[in-house]
C-alpha cells in the first residue's frame, strides 16, 4: 500500500534510530503493531526497522515503553514523506 506514496528518502541519514539492545529487553514490542506504516517487524525474535516508508506520525515515539530505545527526529528538511493530498 505504501508504494502509492511519494517519498524523498534521505540515503545519508536515518531519522529514526533504534538501540537494539534496549529493544531486546522489551517484551510487548508494541511498535510492531501500532506503526501505521508497519515498519517495525520481527526477524527471528529481533526488531527490524526500515525508516524509508515512515509517515512521520510519531506513534512509535509515543508508545515505546523503553525510554531511550528510539531516537526519533523528523527527517532533514525536504526529505521524507511528501503528501500530495493530505
Amino acid at each position, binding site marked *: *500500500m*505504501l508504494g*502509492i*506514496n511519494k517519498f*524523498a528518502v534521505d540515503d545519508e541519514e536515518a531519522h529514526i534510530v533504534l538501540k537494539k539492545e534496549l529493544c531486546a529487553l522489551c517484551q*510487548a514490542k*508494541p511498535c510492531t*503493531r*501500532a*506503526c*501505521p*506504516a*508497519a515498519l517495525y517487524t520481527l526477524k527471528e525474535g529481533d526488531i527490524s526497522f526500515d525508516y524509508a516508508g515512515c*509517515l*512521520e*506520525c*510519531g*506513534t512509535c*515515539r*509515543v*508508545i515505546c*515503553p523503553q525510554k531511550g530505545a528510539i531516537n526519533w*527526529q*523528523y*527527517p*532533514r*528538511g*525536504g*526529505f*521524507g*514523506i*511528501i*503528501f*500530495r*493530498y*493530505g
Partner: protein
Amino acid sequence: MGEDKFTAIIIGAGPAGSTAAYLLAREGLDVLLIEKGASPGSKNMFGGRMYSHALQQIMPDFWEEAPVERPVVREVITFITEDRSLSITCQDESWSRPPYHSFTLLRAEFDAWLAAKAEEAGAVLAYGIRVDGLLMEKGRVAGVRAGTDEMLADVVIAADGVNSIIAQQAGLRKELEPCQVATGAKEVIALPPETISQRFQVSGNGGVAQLFVGSCTKGMPGGGFLYTNKNTISLGVVVNAAALQQNQYRPVDLVEDFKAHPHIAPLIEGGEVVEYSAHLVPEAGLHMMPQLYGDGILVVGDAAGFVLNLGYQVRGMDLAIASGAAAARTIKEAKSKGDFSRQSLSCYQEYLKESFVLRDMEAYKNAPAFLENKRLFSAYPQLATSLASKMFTVDGNQPVHLLGKIIDQLKTNQVGWFQLACDAWKGGRVL
C-alpha cells in the same frame, strides 16, 4: 539568511503558523516562516473538514480563492458493528450557501495556499528547512538553529504541531503520554466527481462528513471518518495511542477492514487509492495544555494541544487558526512595548480566552474523560444497531412492543438501565 534579526520566527507552516505569519506580515513586521516539508502542506494530513468561522474572521470570503473541496451540506453519525449500521443524518441547505459552515479540504494544497498568503503579505517563507533547536540567550529564547544556520528573532512561535519538539526543548511541555494522543490513518480514494455526488445523494458540489463509532476501531476508543472531496474520498480511522499500545490491532488492518464493511464498500467501489497517510491528534484537551508562553516564545495550535474531539465533531483547524491570530496580536503589542519577556507575552492567554479557543476548550474540558468510557465503542453501538434492526424486522414471531424490545436488547447487550441513564446524563452535560 544570517545577520538580520526578525521580529518573529515561526516554526511550522501549518494553519497556526501561516495565520500568525500572515497577520504579522500584514502589520509590516519582519517575519520568517520556516517549514521542514519540501513544500508547505507536504507533511500535513487531517480527517477532512475545516469549520469556516475562524478563517472567515481573518480573510472574509476566503473560499473564493482558497483551494477548498466541497462545502459540507450533510452530517452523518453512524453506529457500526460487524454486520449492521445505524445512522443519524442531518442536512441543512443553509450550509451550502455563504458563509459556508464548513468545507472538506486536502492539506497539501490548502496549507500551501495559506503559506503563500503569508508570503504575499510580506513574510519570508523558507521551506525544506528543519529547525533543529532554539537559540538561548540569558535564559530567553533568542532565535532558532537549523543545521549550521542561526537565525535571530525577538520572539519565536512554536507552531510545529502535535509532536512539538520545540515546545519540549523550551521546557514548556513534557513528553507526550500515549493516552493523550490518537493515531489517525487515512486513505485518499479517487472517484469521478459525479459518482461521488450520486453515491452520496447530494446535488452539485455538496459535501458529506460522516463519523463512525463501533467496530471500525474494534471497540477501542476512537472512530472512523469519511469526508467527500471534489474527486476523492478521505476515509480512515483514529485510535487512541494507549489502546494501540495495549491491543493487537494494526492501523493498516483497521483501515482495510473498515473499507470492506458493507456500509463502506459500495461507496468506494471502483475507486483508486492514491495516498495512505498517518498523523497524531492531540486528544487530552486542557489536560495536556503546555505552558503557552515563555521568555521570547509562544506555543500555538496542535503544539499547544488545541483540538476538540467530541465524537460528533472534530475541530483543530479553526483552533489552530484562531490561536495563530491570538499570538500575532500578542506579538504586535509586545513589539510596540519593545518587551518580549514572559510577562509581556502573558496576554496571549487572555486573547485566547477572548477568542473562542480557550473558552471552547474549557467548555468541553470533561469530554476526553467521558470518551474513555469503553461502552461507547462497543456495547452502545451494539445496542443501538441491534435495537434498530429488531424494530425493522418482520419474521412471523410473536410481536413485541418497543419498550419490550428495548428491555430485551439491554439484557442481551448486558447494559443496565441505570448505567445507560448515567452515561446519557454525563454525555449530555460534557459533550
